[in-house]
């Protein structure tokens, strides 16, 4: 249809030839030259009309009009670049922020597990573990006997699959010569087949592989890409896991990175049964690994519901088997003990994510939603103002024959241009913002915008388009052409300046702005408090890394660490070195009751007796820079052969040994099997995270306890902390070539990870608050400036009649102050509601923090005054004569 075989000139030529032929024939019939020409022309009729019909022929008439409208729209927008840029930028930021937050929300809260039929997949949960067991999570993990029993029952809840990581963080692997770390999991043989995860390369596991504990590995697509550059030759090669050689047999489908929230598993093994590959990389407990130890509830279980079975039926069927298996190896339940109850939850949407990110993300979504509202209102007002200012242009065009429909369509096309450009900008902005968001939030799974996100954005754009379409409707319905030519600028624009819709919109924007500013302010003060929290130690100059050596006996392990510390201490630039079982600032902790002088200490009714304990090496507190208040630090001279010694913190002394000198008292485990003498009291300091409250703590000496496993090395160095890592790595590898440094980083960075989510949340909230203020300021400025310009004639009249400059300025300022007051009055109560909702995310600041409210109100008022100042000054400088002459 767009292909034109023949040019318009060719057609015109054809007609000209016709006219000449006709004239010649007429001449031959006896007419004079001039008469012949005239008659030929007259007989032909309207040449232009024919040419126009030729032009229009074979074109999509509507499309042609549309393109002309588009060209006209671009021209008209180019004439007011300020308006166009503001509108497009506003839309881009408003919609982009929404798309970005929605992308994250979609990825972590809405997306399903990338497995076949995720609706029928359930996680197994228990109400509580039986007494005397240790767990990873008291509701989510189970013992091997429970797994074994559930797997063998053939009810509606089958098959049951288990999975358990090889480490709390990453595990040492080696492919070729260089040791490194990766996230690995042991899983049931049915794992891939029952989940319905395909293996584009190689094979998955079988039940026989699980029974044989076959040393084979399936790697994730992501790991295959990242580590092996998608080399197909990797199948059949050996991957050493904690020094154990395993054969790579398959690559899992793209996008599958395990069934837990926020994890990105790099490789999977069938459930193994050897000391080097114990669950969570733990050392053997009394020589037992996770399979042999019924007291260690460490396996996570997932199962498929049989088709047609309800969750209640499935639970009822499996309950008996579960409760019997729960006490395998534990003896019978004590009188009055509440037996554990099996339960299941949907696995579809990563329930773990919801607990972690749910509420802050929903809060952010609400915030960006408000920002979007402000942005849309801004653009609508800008459009209204612009169209009102063009009223006369429209009426002139109507008078010249443009239909009302034509005008309306023209305005719609202009809106369309704005929405399209804004949408493109929004998408680019969102792509960038999403990537940053993912990095900050440390969400390892993919956040790439998918179809849902695209649909969401298109939906928002459609909404915007529709809204902007309604704005010009008023123009289309407004009076006819005669009116425009008659009325003057002053009178025709008079009521436009007093538009009630405009006033209400500005007031509402102020309201939203107050809410956003209060929310952002509270979170930013939280951030400040978190960042400035004293840690109770000299954290600068500290570097930490993990090692996970293999050894067959406890003395061998102790010797390994002693040797390692000795070698690290003599490196140039190293001040002191120590080891610790739980890394500081990593959320890990060991919590138990402890005996004091042979019995559990008395506590006031209802208060906790829990002591947080850790296992550390010599010179630990010296290395950290934690002051020892009385007594001494651990030393190299504290060995397995010397008397057992322990150290406590102030809080422990205050709580359990009040008004006594704690030194010399005996403390120990709650089963009474291990005791030690207090030789030191140290100042309270942060342990698990930055935002924790002081809690009683006790430290064991690693060389004296009957257990030794992976440890973290803390080093205090001169100069840049990370610069020591290459030489430290060399030391470690000389001792064992299979050992990588696990998660090496500065201690400061490690502590910062414990507030990274709050920091991200606060920064984002602050950013959106700021964005809202900028949007409101531009909106307010635009609206006020427009209203003043509409009232130029009125102001001229007032000044001609004797109004003073100050009076005019006050008239304008008063207007915006009234709007501000209205916004504040509505905004503060709303902000209080928001503050209450935010309470759980705040640290060191109350939801009713007066300073935050005052700052928000002051900021809004400042913006309003600043935005009014320019139009007010302009109004005051109106020359009465010129204003009146605008007629």
């Amino acid at each position: 249809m767009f292909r034109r075989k023949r040019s318009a000139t060719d057609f015109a030529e054809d007609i000209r030839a016709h006219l000449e032929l006709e004239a010649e024939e007429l001449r031959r019939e006896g007419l004079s030259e001039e008469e012949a020409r005239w008659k030929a022309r007259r007989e032909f009729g309207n040449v232009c009309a024919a040419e126009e019909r030729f032009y229009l022929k074979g074109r999509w008439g509507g499309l042609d009009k549309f393109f002309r409208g588009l060209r006209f729209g671009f021209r008209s927008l180019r004439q007011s670049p300020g308006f166009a840029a503001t509108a497009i930028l506003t839309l881009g930021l408003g919609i982009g922020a929404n798309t970005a937050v929605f992308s994250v929300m979609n990825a972590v809260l809405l997306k399903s597990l990338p497995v076949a039929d995720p609706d029928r997949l359930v996680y197994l949960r228990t109400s509580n573990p039986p007494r005397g067991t240790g767990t990873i999570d008291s509701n989510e993990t189970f013992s091997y006997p429970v797994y074994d029993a559930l797997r063998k029952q053939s009810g509606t809840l089958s098959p049951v699959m288990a999975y358990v990581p090889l480490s709390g963080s990453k595990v040492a692997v080696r492919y070729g010569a260089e040791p490194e770390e990766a996230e690995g999991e042991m899983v049931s043989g049915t794992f891939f087949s029952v989940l319905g995860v395909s293996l584009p390369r190689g094979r998955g596991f079988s039940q026989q592989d699980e029974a044989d504990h076959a040393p084979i590995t399936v790697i994730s697509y992501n790991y295959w890409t990242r580590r092996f550059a998608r080399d197909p030759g990797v199948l059949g090669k050996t991957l050493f896991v904690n020094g154990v050689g395993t054969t790579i047999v398959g690559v899992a489908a793209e996008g599958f990175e395990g069934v837990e929230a926020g994890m990105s598993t790099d490789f999977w093994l069938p459930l193994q049964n050897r000391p080097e590959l114990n669950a969570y990389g733990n050392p053997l407990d009394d020589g037992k690994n996770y399979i042999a130890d019924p007291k260690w509830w460490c396996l996570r279980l997932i199962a498929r519901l049989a088709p047609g079975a309800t969750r209640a039926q499935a639970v009822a069927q499996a309950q008996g088997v579960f409760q019997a298996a729960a006490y395998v190896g534990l003896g019978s339940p004590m009188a009055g003990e509440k037996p554990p109850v099996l339960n299941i939850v949907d696995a579809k949407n990563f329930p773990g994510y919801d607990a972690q990110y749910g509420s802050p993300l929903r809060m952010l979504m609400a915030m960006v939603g408000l920002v979007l509202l402000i942005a849309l209102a801004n653009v609508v007002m800008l459009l209204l103002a612009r169209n009102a200012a063009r009223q006369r242009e429209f009426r002139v065009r109507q008078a010249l024959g443009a239909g009302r429909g034509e005008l309306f369509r023209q305005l719609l096309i202009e809106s369309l241009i704005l929405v399209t450009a804004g949408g493109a900008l929004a998408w680019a902005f969102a792509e960038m913002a999403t990537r940053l968001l993912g990095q900050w939030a440390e969400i390892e799974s993919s956040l790439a915008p998918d179809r849902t996100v695209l649909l969401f954005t298109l939906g928002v754009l459609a909404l915007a388009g529709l809204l902007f379409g309604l704005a010009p409707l008023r123009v289309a319905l407004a009076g006819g052409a005669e009116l425009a030519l008659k009325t003057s600028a002053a009178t025709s624009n008079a009521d436009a300046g007093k538009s009630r819709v405009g006033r209400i919109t500005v007031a509402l924007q102020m309201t939203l702005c107050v809410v956003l500013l209060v929310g952002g302010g509270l979170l930013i003060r939280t951030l400040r408090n978190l960042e400035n929290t004293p840690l109770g130690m000299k954290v600068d100059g500290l570097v930490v890394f993990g090692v996970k050596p293999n050894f067959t006996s406890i003395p061998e392990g102790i010797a390994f660490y002693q040797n390692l510390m000795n070698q690290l201490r003599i490196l140039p630039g190293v001040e002191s070195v120590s080891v610790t079982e739980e890394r500081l600032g990593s959320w890990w902790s060991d919590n138990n009751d402890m005996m004091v002088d042979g019995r559990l200490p008395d506590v006031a009714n209802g208060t906790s007796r829990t002591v947080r304990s850790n296992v550390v090496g010599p010179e630990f507190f010296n290395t950290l820079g934690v002051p020892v208040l009385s007594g001494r630090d651990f030393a190299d001279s504290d060995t397995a052969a010397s008397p057992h010694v322990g150290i406590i913190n102030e809080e422990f002394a205050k709580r359990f040994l009040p008004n006594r000198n704690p030194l010399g008292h005996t403390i120990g485990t709650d089963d009474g099997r291990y005791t030690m003498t207090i030789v030191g009291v140290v100042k309270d300091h942060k342990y698990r995270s930055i935002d924790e409250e002081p809690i009683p703590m006790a430290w064991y000496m690693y060389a004296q306890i009957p257990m030794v496993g992976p440890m973290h090395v803390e080093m205090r160095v001169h100069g840049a902390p990370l610069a020591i890592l290459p030489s430290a790595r060399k030391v470690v590898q000389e001792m064992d070539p299979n050992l990588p440094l696990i998660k090496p980083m500065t201690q400061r960075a490690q502590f910062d990870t414990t507030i990274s989510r709050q920091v991200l949340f606060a920064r984002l909230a602050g950013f959106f608050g700021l964005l809202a203020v900028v949007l409101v300021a531009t909106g307010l400025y635009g609206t006020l400036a427009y209203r003043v310009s509409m009232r130029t004639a009125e102001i001229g009249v007032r000044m001609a009649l004797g109004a003073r400059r100050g009076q005019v300025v006050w008239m304008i300022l008063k207007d915006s102050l009234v709007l501000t007051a209205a916004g504040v009055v509505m905004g503060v109560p709303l902000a209080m509601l928001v503050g209450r909702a935010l309470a759980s995310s705040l640290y060191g600041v109350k939801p009713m923090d007066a300073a935050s409210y005052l700052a928000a109100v002051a900021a809004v008022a400042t913006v309003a005054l600043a935005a009014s100042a320019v139009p007010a000054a302009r109004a005051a400088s109106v020359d009465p004569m010129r204003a009146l002459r605008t007629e």
Partner: protein
Amino acid sequence: MTTQENQFDSIALLHGTLDLLILKTLALGPCHGQGVARAIQRRSEEVFLVDHGSLYVALQRLEDKGWLRAEWGVSENNRRARFYRLTAKGREQLVEKTSDWRRLTRAMGLILDAGNGPQGEEA
């Protein structure tokens, strides 16, 4: 979205008529636009006064349909003119449209003559 062309087709009878007349005229041999107009006028004993503008649009339309072909040539009195000739497809169309037209005029005739026939008994 309709095309301009379809708008013309919506008053099919008139244009169908013009198309048929053009096809019939060109069946006698290639001719330029002015010649076609003259021929139609002459053969209809000056009953049909062809609107020349419409004629050229119609010629273009038939060309687009592939019923006609056109090329620039020189007229009998040495003037440059665009000559139109019937294609094989155009010839088929002429046969088809002629019979359509015959059926149409016969049907019209039957209806228009009916009132004068012997069936007028109702009154």
